[in-house]
């Protein structure tokens, strides 16, 4: 396999592992959320992430190599996006329910990615826009929506359950 091919496969595997980990984390966080509350859960999740990242950085010896001056002020603000994700998703979920929320989130997520790649903003290597990219994204969105489809009867039951939960 060519060097580019290997790079591609490794990249895809890394992204797939991250996706699987997100689902696991969501389930576990949900367990914490049921017992405590959404901000306790968010604080705990990010706190854990911070502690593990700090220990890993120190063990890898990467921290000692950085000069304090290298850390731009805006780096600190990048972490705010993590809280933005949680807050926006919780608010959307409350108002729209899971199916509609996930459709819009996916569309926004992938179109932002496509636009960013096409312009190569902020030191990201530019990958030219193509109609096949757009077609691929639309197919993925359609695929996820079909995948999430349920029988009408079950969907109605879910709706009732959700309403009960919101009112209760």
């Amino acid at each position, binding site marked *: 396999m060519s060097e580019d091919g290997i790079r591609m496969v490794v990249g895809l595997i890394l*992204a797939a592992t991250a996706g699987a980990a997100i689902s696991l984390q969501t389930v576990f966080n949900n367990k914490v959320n049921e017992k405590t509350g*959404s901000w306790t859960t968010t604080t705990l999740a990010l706190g854990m992430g911070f502690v593990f990242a700090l220990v890993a950085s120190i063990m890898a010896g990467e921290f000692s190599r950085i000069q304090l001056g290298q850390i731009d002020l805006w780096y600190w603000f990048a972490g705010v996006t993590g809280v933005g994700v949680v807050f926006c*998703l919780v608010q959307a979920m409350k108002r729209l329910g899971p199916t509609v929320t996930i459709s819009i989130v996916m569309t926004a997520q992938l179109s932002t990615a496509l636009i960013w790649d096409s312009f190569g903003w902020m030191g990201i290597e530019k990958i030219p826009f193509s109609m096949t990219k757009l077609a691929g994204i639309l197919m993925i969105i359609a695929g996820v929506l079909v*995948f999430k489809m349920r029988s009408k009867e079950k969907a109605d039951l879910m709706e009732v359950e959700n309403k009960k939960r919101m009112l209760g």
Partner: protein
Amino acid sequence: MKGVLFAFLGGMFITLQGVLNANISGEIGTLPAITITQFTGFFLAFTIWLLVRDGNYTQIKSVKTAYLFAGSFGLLIIFNEVTAIHSIGITLTMSMLLISQVLMAFFIDTRGWFGMEKKQIHAPQYIGVTLMVLGVIVMQL
């Protein structure tokens, strides 16, 4: 309408988070980048928690210890995401991430892991997976 706006911003934030982490990691290394962004996130969430005090944090004792460590996945998630963005671009990374996320969630559901209610695989799931995989292949054409 407000819900739609929140959902849209949420999706944008997911991509933005990956891109910003990738950018910072190019400057100071991936692990320190994750440490800094997770710290700010933690600090902000903690401040909000102090103000809101929602739910009942003392109940944390009744949660299985393993679940409390879910946040540690954040390190793996962002590390892989950032490395993938550098090698295959944002669009492909986000697509793959999304597909594997949906599949993993479904896998957990069908197996009934972690006390989740068991679900069955039907035709829509097979068609959906086929569409997603075709989508990734089409993107590479």
